[in-house]
């Protein structure tokens, strides 16, 4: 039995490595599992933007784009399988959309010369490009997010939150634990009290955490959640009648599917974001015309304009722009992962550039350098309007507290460099 399956798999593998002459932007998606609700819109947006480029512009620089999809189900073992099978197709950039899988492939991607873009997730200290040569996390990372939440609270409290109590409800994993260090440093700086409450994977059971919140009576609750955990948390918050406007989620806890199950009760819930919400942009008209109406949309095609769909489009746009830069820099239409990495390290996104792409004001302006793989860390805040069923930006993209974050990034990346004997490049 063992031998038979192995032979079968060999035959399968032999036949399954197609020759690709396209620009390959793999999508490590998850359309199944506890996080599918978030994975589907992101994967759809990512694929649709590249389909748009193929249909409207004939690809990037005249070369067609292909987006092979690999289902990870947010599972690290499947992520490894995906990484190994995608590696042979000369991918230009990987977007694992999972902090766990990101940790897995950080060391491998450096060896295999494949850039990884972990937009708003992954290992925060990858911002230090001197150590993490192939990892990019522009335009913002978790620590920017944590600081963005605190900055917003400062803003609405006239700059003083000393003595306030802020609770962090987090997914008990590498992802959820990321902001704790920054929040602790910020608590010291601004004099607020931090209460941390861990929620075990997948997060369907949060009664005890919210009971504790009811007992502790924090002034504000912030949440590092994902997938099913968000919906449950917002429902539980509604159940204990926690005022929604004092409940602020990270950008992975601020999409339509997170708030819709709670209905009217979710009205006023806030979430930070690093890109615009809504579908009022010219690019979406093009997507509608060239992709959705042409019947070429990924998935069910019903996600256009949702928050995470926009994030997928944004990620695809940043990848496509870097690819254009790489083509311009090398003079070759067909680029490699190495060229792509060099271009990503020099990427500059300006307002004009976004406007030309039909995405004016879609995200913050930023530029990447060897020292800074994380962009400028501008964070905005959006609020859910349950009656209109839409997210609205209530606070524009503002600078996070780099005084606190920069030393933390230096410390954590130095630890990684020491562990792996990496000599910082810059």
């Amino acid at each position: 039995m063992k031998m038979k399956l192995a032979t079968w798999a060999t035959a399968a593998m032999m036949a399954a490595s197609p020759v690709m002459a396209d620009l390959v932007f793999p999508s490590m998606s998850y359309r199944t599992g506890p996080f599918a609700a978030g994975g589907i819109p992101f994967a759809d947006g990512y694929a649709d933007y590249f389909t748009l480029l193929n249909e409207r512009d004939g690809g990037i620089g005249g070369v067609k784009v292909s987006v092979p999809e690999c289902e990870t189900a947010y599972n690290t073992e499947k992520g490894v399988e995906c990484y190994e099978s995608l590696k042979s197709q000369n991918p230009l950039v990987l977007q694992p959309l999972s902090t766990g899988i990101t940790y897995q492939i950080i060391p491998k991607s450096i060896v295999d010369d494949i850039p990884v873009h972990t937009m708003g997730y992954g290992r925060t200290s990858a911002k230090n490009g001197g150590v993490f040569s192939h990892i990019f996390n522009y335009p913002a990372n978790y620590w920017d997010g944590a600081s963005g939440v605190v900055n917003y609270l400062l803003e609405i409290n006239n700059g003083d939150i000393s003595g306030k109590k802020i609770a962090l409800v987090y997914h008990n994993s590498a992802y959820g634990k990321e902001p704790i260090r920054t929040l602790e440093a910020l608590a010291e700086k601004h004099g607020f009290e931090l209460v941390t409450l861990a929620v075990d994977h997948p997060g369907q059971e949060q009664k005890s955490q919210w009971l504790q919140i009811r007992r502790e009576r924090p002034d504000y609750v912030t949440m590092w959640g994902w997938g099913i955990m968000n919906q449950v948390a917002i429902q539980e918050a509604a159940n204990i009648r926690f005022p929604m406007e004092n409940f602020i989620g990270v950008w992975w806890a601020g999409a339509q599917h997170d708030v819709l199950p709670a209905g009217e009760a979710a009205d006023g819930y806030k979430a930070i974001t690093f890109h615009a919400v809504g579908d009022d942009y010219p690019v979406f008209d093009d997507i509608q015309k060239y992709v959705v109406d042409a019947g070429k949309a990924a998935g069910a095609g019903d996600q256009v304009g949702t928050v995470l769909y926009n994030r997928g489009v944004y990620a695809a746009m940043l990848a496509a722009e870097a690819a254009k830069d790489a083509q311009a820099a090398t003079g070759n239409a067909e680029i490699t992962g190495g060229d792509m990495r060099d271009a990503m390290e020099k990427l500059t996104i300006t307002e004009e550039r976004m406007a030309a792409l039909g995405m004016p004001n879609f995200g913050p302006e930023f530029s990447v350098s060897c020292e800074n793989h994380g962009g400028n860390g501008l964070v905005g805040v959006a609020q859910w309007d349950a009656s209109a069923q839409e997210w609205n930006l209530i606070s524009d993209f503002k600078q996070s507290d780099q005084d606190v974050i920069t030393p933390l990034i230096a410390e954590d990346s130095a630890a990684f460099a020491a562990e792996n004997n990496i000599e910082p490049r810059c």
Partner: protein
Amino acid sequence: MFYREAGDFSTTYAEDQQTFPIKFDRYRYYVVLFIAIVVVPFVINDYWANSLLLPFLIYAIAAIGLNILVGYCGQVSLGTGGFMAVGAYACYKFMTGVDIWWGGELLFRLPEFNIFFSVIMGGVMTALVGVLFGLPSLRIKGFYLAVATLAAQFFLVWLFNRVSWFYNYSASGQINAPERDLFGVLITGPSTEPWATYLFCLFFTIVCAVVARNLTRGASGRKWMAIRDMDIAAEIIGVNPLRAKLTAFAVSSFFVGISGALFFAVYLGAVEVGEAFGITKSFLVLFMIIIGGLGSIFGSFAGAAFLVLLPVVLKVVGVDWLGWPTDIVAHLQLVIVGGLIVMFLILEPHGLAQLWRVAKEKLRLWPFPH
């Protein structure tokens, strides 16, 4: 015609009692070993190693370990994931140098162990923890024991998440395997060669399988089986249930710990306890031995192969050949694997190992069945 003992004369007791007394069987075993050790390392690539062979070998070790406990000794355990986590974290601590603190001060730090001994220490530590959690088995049986081991599963995962000493105080709570080599050949870390990691795991798998096979054929295995079949009768004929059950827990946990250590250090390289060693892992390994065959070493291999390779094969066929959407294939995969499990349990409750036994029996009489 094939596979018969006719003409196969044993002249010594050793020959008569060897693992594969039938010549054809023995040669087949040698051929498999030869291919695995000599041929595969030369043709292996990254995809083969990391997607198929490493998980297969590592899960096979875990399945052998659990099979000793459940299949041979009859003590149902749902704590496999937790015990694998013990192996992984022990291996990590020994790899990076165990630091002992007392009253906020560093008392001493052990030197960093070689990766080989780190994996062994992963097994040893897990054996100790396994014995500890095996103690309730002296009083409780069956479903109740399963619940007790379930407690071990949740407690251990909670512990590794909670106590930052286990992950060397890293901000994310992840453990990352640093680069380590054996005789100058890298075994862990990103720059490893596929043949090196494969041979490293293969070595452990073969040793574990041979040890397990011989243990289960010998006195201790017979004691375990006596306990499994009827513990009171076993006690009356002189089997000490305390020793038998605790040795089963110790040996089983040792193997599971080895597999956890390899799973973390060699296969994944970075691990997060809740995601990698959750309750689903316990069930996965339990399904492996149920499908493969309880109380059979071959069954452990067959079950591991079935549950590791089948999803990959289905994915390759569905997505890469037929070009179906990935989510449809992922869902179909669940349906097909689930359906096959149900089918196996109905048609062959003793698992793949029994199918193999039946096939051998048929081959023995072929082509003239009576």
